[in-house]
């Protein structure tokens, strides 16, 4: 039951991203904070010291600042596939805010769900996939069963029984020889 309730999906690559050129899937990010409240203290610090570096490094992401009076600080990330994610970061240190921003930047916008293993290849082998007839002779398609020739036991070299029997006969002959010598 729970297996069906937990959302699961195959690994996805939106628009085959990175095959041609890599397009950052985060299209805009909004930092919401209060100018006076204590909960936004570290967010203000982050904006002062780290935000410029972030926007310079990622010119493809539109950055907005939105001061809201007496509200908890948060980050809103909007992705190219239309997905929007909000993170509330009250009393979080600037270093932690940096990490969350980086986390949002590197995501593809596909929701995080349990992965299903996709056993799949874009380039199948030249031999083709295995099938039950792979090493069978095509002659069998027209033979009538039961077939005497095909039913006969295939003998390839000595079997284990043969080896033991051989050993026994050898031992017997040697024993006989030994007895003969003693008798003399």
């Amino acid at each position, binding site marked *: 039951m729970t297996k069906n309730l937990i959302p699961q999906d195959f690994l996805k690559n939106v628009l085959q991203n990175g095959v041609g050129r890599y397009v950052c899937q985060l*299209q805009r990010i909004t930092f919401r904070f209060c100018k006076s409240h204590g909960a936004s203290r570290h967010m203000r610090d982050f904006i002062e010291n780290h935000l410029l570096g972030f926007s310079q490094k990622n010119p493809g992401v539109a950055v907005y600042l939105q001061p809201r009076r007496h509200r908890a600080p948060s980050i809103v990330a909007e992705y190219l596939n239309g997905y929007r994610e909000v993170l509330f970061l009250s009393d979080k240190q600037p270093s932690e805010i940096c990490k969350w921003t980086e986390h949002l930047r590197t995501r593809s916008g596909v929701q995080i769900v349990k992965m299903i293993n996709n056993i799949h290849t874009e380039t199948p082998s030249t031999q083709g996939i295995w099938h039950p007839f792979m090493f069978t002779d095509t002659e069998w398609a027209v033979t009538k069963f039961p077939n005497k020739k095909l039913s006969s036991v295939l003998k390839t070299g000595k079997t284990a029984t043969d080896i033991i029997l051989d050993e026994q006969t050898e031992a017997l002959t040697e024993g006989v020889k030994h007895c003969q010598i003693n008798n003399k």
Partner: protein
Amino acid sequence: MSASIVRSCAFAQQMTLMTLRTCATSVYHVSKRNYDQYRMKYLREMYKRRLEVGPEKERRRSEWINWNYDSEIFAFGKRLGEEFNETTIKQAFIHSSYVEKERAKRAELGLNLKDLTFDLEDNSELAEKGADLISNYVKVYLRNMYPYFFEEGICAIHNYLVSESMLSHIAKHIGCGDLILSEDFPVLPSTLSQTFKAVVGAVLKDRGQEKAETFVRDFVLPQLISKDINELWEVVNPMGLLTAVLALIGKGPPEPRLLWKSGANTIMALYWVGIYSDKQLVAKSPGETVTIAEEMAAREALKKLMKTEDSRSPLILGRMADNLKLDYKKVNMSAAEVLKNYYSQLKKQNTASA
């Protein structure tokens, strides 16, 4: 009023006394002594009202406060790693319906259009140029990648790639959706696909043919990955085509032979048919009846002759394609022509022998 103030003061005094008493034991702990019964009622009421009013109206992204069109346009170019001229890329996002609307607005205000400089130009011209480039380049690239594939097949793949649904999908995922200026909302797939063509046109205008072709190769052609290209082209009579192709390359006519079978007269029946030419196995394939297996084997043989088997080497894309030399004048063989030639020759032979 005064009574309430007095009461609240007395309450405050009591509170301070209480806190003074408790602070010795726990400084930070404040116990919660209510069950939020009013909040519960409030939320229930809000829920009811939301059901009555219905869902929130879908709005354009530009209606929200955190929106700056210029910075969005700048980010669009940077995101794709292209350097656009600002006026060109802005024009690429203007749809003709938007221009008409603006004109109508000005006319409504009683402004004379002749006096004012109305410099809005829609993207139809850019889109036309972009569409031509996409179409040409996709065909040239495919012809060079699959030199033995028939022209009909090339056209089928091309149609799949430049279809409205595919181009609108690409346009949406490179971030055109919010930037488009058009009358229709939510933006129609046709508008999205036209915008993508216009963006290609803008690259062509600002950065030249080569960069525009790289743009197409990076965004349109990767959509073929994990797509079965043989399925895109529907061959009606594979055995007929196979006969003609084998005759063309100087091989004997195809001979289907049953290789293996299993579970005949059951619902799990399985037949493997191989196709031979000059006593050499060309291809084999399974099927639930002999006729299906034969047809599938013929398709498999065609795949082998066209060198589009499942195990073909992957397309040359991305950085590996930087030094790719394409022959722009390459022409692939047409299946219709091959068939026509083969059957006209057959006819001639028959009349000669009769």
